[in-house]
């Protein structure tokens, strides 16, 4: 009996105990659900607030007349700025090109200036003396230092014999050079016509060949030729003539011719003067 009562109580106690556990479990789930619903409600409230704000913003834009047009206006503004940017870039390119052109012109002017300075000094030196030998020496220096010639001959025209006689040489002995008839060969023709001669191809120099110069520059006073500079070889570092050489040659040839002519006249007049003085002395003795 006692055992029956015990067993019944035990079952009851177990059931009570289990019911208690289920209730706790239910309560927990209920609490969690309540929290979640609360959270959802809060979130919902926030969203409603945001929607209200956006609606308010939209209403304000509509009132101001902005709206869908704003987008189009922004695109138009971007296009305008883009065009402005391209215009500025083009202007920068133009300025850069102009700068480049100015820099090139500056170099050109600088070179021209240097050449004029060289020409001025050369002509100043040529006219600095009336001594024939000194003038010849200056011509030789100019041809070596300004033109860059290694082997060349300065011929002067003897009007009586119509022959070109060598008066100075560089890189070759004077004795190795002979007279040339006016009009004969490249040198003679250059002297006769008064025209510069430049060989189209500068051959490799092997031996001295008097009739094959690479350049001939007649020394002229107006149209009157008084001599010729014949170049046979350039300095090793100078492979060819440049544009400037042609101009320099012509300009220097004019100065060299007048300097030579003046010096020759002066020397002759000096000689005549001393002869006359000798005669006078003889007569007055």
């Amino acid at each position: 009996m006692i055992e029956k009562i015990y067993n019944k109580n035990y079952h009851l106690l177990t059931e009570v105990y289990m019911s208690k556990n289920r209730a706790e479990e239910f309560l927990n789930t209920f609490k969690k659900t309540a929290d979640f619903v609360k959270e959802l409600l809060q979130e919902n409230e926030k969203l409603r607030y945001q929607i209200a704000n956006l609606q308010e913003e939209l209403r304000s834009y509509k009132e101001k007349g902005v709206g869908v047009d704003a987008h189009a206006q922004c695109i138009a503004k971007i296009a305008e700025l883009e065009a402005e940017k391209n215009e500025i870039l083009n202007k920068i390119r133009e300025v850069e090109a102009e700068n480049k052109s100015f820099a090139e012109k500056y170099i050109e002017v600088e070179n021209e200036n240097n050449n004029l300075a060289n020409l001025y000094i050369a002509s100043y030196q040529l006219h600095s003396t009336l001594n024939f030998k000194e003038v010849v020496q200056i011509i030789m220096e100019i041809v070596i230092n300004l033109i860059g010639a290694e082997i060349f001959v300065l011929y002067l025209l003897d009007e009586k014999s119509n022959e070109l006689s060598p008066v100075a040489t560089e890189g070759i002995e004077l004795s190795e050079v002979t007279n040339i008839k006016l009009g004969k060969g490249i040198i003679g023709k250059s002297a006769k016509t008064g025209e510069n001669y430049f060989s189209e191809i500068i051959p490799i120099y092997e031996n001295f060949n008097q009739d094959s110069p690479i350049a001939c520059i007649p020394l002229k006073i107006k149209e009157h030729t008084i001599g010729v500079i014949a170049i046979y070889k350039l300095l090793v570092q100078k492979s060819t003539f440049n544009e400037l050489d042609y101009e320099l040659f012509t300009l220097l040839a004019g100065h060299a011719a007048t300097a030579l002519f003046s010096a020759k006249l002066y020397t002759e007049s000096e000689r005549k003067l001393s002869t006359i003085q000798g005669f006078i002395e003889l007569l007055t003795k």
Partner: protein
Amino acid sequence: MAKIEILVVEDSPTMRQLIVFALKRLKDVNVTEASDGVDGLKKLSNKQFDLLIADINMPIMDGLKLVSLVRQDPKYSNMPIIIVTTEGADEDRKRGLTLGANAYLTKPVQTTQLIATVKELLKLP
């Protein structure tokens, strides 16, 4: 401010004038001229120079001899030297630079090239 002292040793008066004229374009430069190596040495002993420009082919004493003698002088061991010459062969260039020249320019020398070399060696703006 003290002027930059440059000595030009060149036997050709025309070439000397061309070099002097080019150098005078530089600011605060004083140029002294000498007609050969011996004349150059004499002028170097009388005054302190900042730069020497010398030709090679000169009477009495050539430019190479001048360069080697100048380099032996402790006073001028660091002075920049420019050789301006008609001798354009590689061996001549090597010889000049080995003897102590800082630059080797061949004739016909361009003024712009000469000025640029001078500026570079003297560290001028």
